[in-house]
């Protein structure tokens, strides 16, 4: 099992989920982490119909359980068409993780190691969007070590620029860092929530810095609204 096989499997394009793996993951995540979704713009917290067009869910990243939690928070119709963008160095590292990522989450694995040229790191994600999938993306690129969001990487801007019709949905994940902080290896059972904000898109003429700062602010605002 080398990095090469990971790269091959993501180049194959659409990966079929194994329904058993997905169902087992769902049960485990719900039991340990509850994964409760809520929508910030509605008093009852219920999620609106986000429609069928491809979109990018962006969220704060502090824990290895973030991907699973946000995935499990999505309503079933969205989960079926959404692929998390996940780091090959973590999710491809063991047979179990690889199975969960590819067959359970249908993740798009990206190579952060530096072997892939910077401009091509997000290429598989772009292909997935083009093929009609939605994405889960952590624009900080890596896990933060406190509740303050780190700066967003340029990848989100490039995706938005190449596909300006794709709307971006900000999400704030709570409690995941307490469940599995950096260095922890067993998640503590905690009720984790994903608070969804209103979709937004790249404004015409908006430059990279301004767009990334705006995206980061919307996620931060979701976290501080309590």
């Amino acid at each position: 099992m080398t990095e090469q096989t990971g790269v091959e499997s993501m180049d194959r394009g659409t990966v079929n989920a194994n329904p058993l793996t997905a169902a087992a993951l769902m049960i485990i995540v719900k039991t340990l982490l509850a994964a409760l979704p809520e929508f910030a713009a509605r008093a009852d917290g219920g999620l609106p119909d986000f429609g069928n067009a491809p979109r990018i869910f962006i969220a704060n990243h502090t824990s290895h359980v973030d991907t699973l939690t946000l995935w499990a928070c999505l309503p079933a119709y969205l989960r079926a068409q959404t692929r998390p963008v996940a780091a090959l160095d973590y999710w491809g590292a063991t047979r179990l993780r690889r199975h969960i990522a590819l067959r359970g989450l249908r993740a798009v694995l990206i190579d952060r190691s530096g072997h892939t040229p910077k401009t091509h790191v997000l290429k598989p994600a772009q292909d997935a969007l083009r093929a009609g999938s939605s994405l889960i993306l952590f624009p900080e690129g890596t896990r933060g070590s406190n509740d303050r969001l780190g700066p967003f990487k340029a990848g989100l801007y490039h995706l938005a620029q190449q596909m300006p019709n794709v709307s971006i949905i900000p999400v704030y994940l709570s409690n995941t860092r307490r469940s599995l902080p950096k260095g922890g290896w067993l998640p503590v059972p905690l009720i984790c929530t994903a608070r969804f904000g209103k979709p937004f898109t790249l404004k015409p003429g908006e430059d990279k810095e301004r767009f990334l700062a705006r995206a980061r602010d919307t996620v931060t605002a979701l976290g501080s609204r309590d």
Partner: protein
Amino acid sequence: MHLFPQTPHFAIMAWLFAGLVLLLTLASGVGYALNRRHGAQRSAVVDNLNARIRAWWWMVGILGLAFAFGQDVTLALFAVASFFSLREFISLTPTRPGDHAALVAAFYVMLPAQYLLIASHWYGLFVILIPVYGFLLLPLLSAIGKDTQSFLERAAKIQWAVMITVYCLSYAPALLMLKIPSDPGGDALLLFFLIFVVQVSDVLQYVFGKMFGKTLIAPTLSPSKTVEGFIGGALSATVLGTCLWWATPFRPWQAGLIAGIIVVMGFCGGLVLSAVKRSLGAKDWGSMIEGHGGALDRLDSVVFSAPVFFHLVRFFWT
């Protein structure tokens, strides 16, 4: 362990559950009638009442199944209840990354160990595992996390969470390990008696409170506990408990006295856990059980009454 053993105790249990089904059918009928009467202007109180009744059907069904399958399944059910209660408690408790090892130990070591000790009828270790060894081990694990900020508060909160949601709650199924000479095999009925009296008292306090409640007992702790609700609910639950004396090793006056103690302890549990909840800035412990809130909202009275009931029975009847 036989499934559906043909013992006199099992027959009594079956009749008691049949009675519960009858009560719930009545309650559902009343809920349906209230809903029709209110018709267009839907009332939040009636909606909540019906949600609570629906949840009761589930809870009685699950408890009935567990009782039918015997000690091990009942223990597993309470272990799951402890798990969800502890998850609710810790979710509201501000812990820090340095507490990770202590929390892992609480969930994956303390909780299963406590219930395995009951399953193996090891009374001596069951009573001290969490108050002594957990008390020493958990803060040690937090200390290894090398974070001194609010250390004592964090250690105290984690210990409190485990004491309430695992230790105190486990006293309810621990009744199954008591051997009562005058009534061998009646242990499951004792557990039924405890749960029935506690929960009926909660329900009746709620009903009396909604109908006659005027004077708040502790407005800063709970906006729903009233003097009228408490007196009406506590007295009627004690009477109902007394009426169940024939299913227990107790004489009628003893059943009444013990039911009264259970009811008062249950009320104290509701009050104390309400104060804890509020100090953590929450209204409900969670949202698992429709209409009721979290698992701990339903179990707050059990956790206070179970240890007292257990030790009363153990001291005077074994």
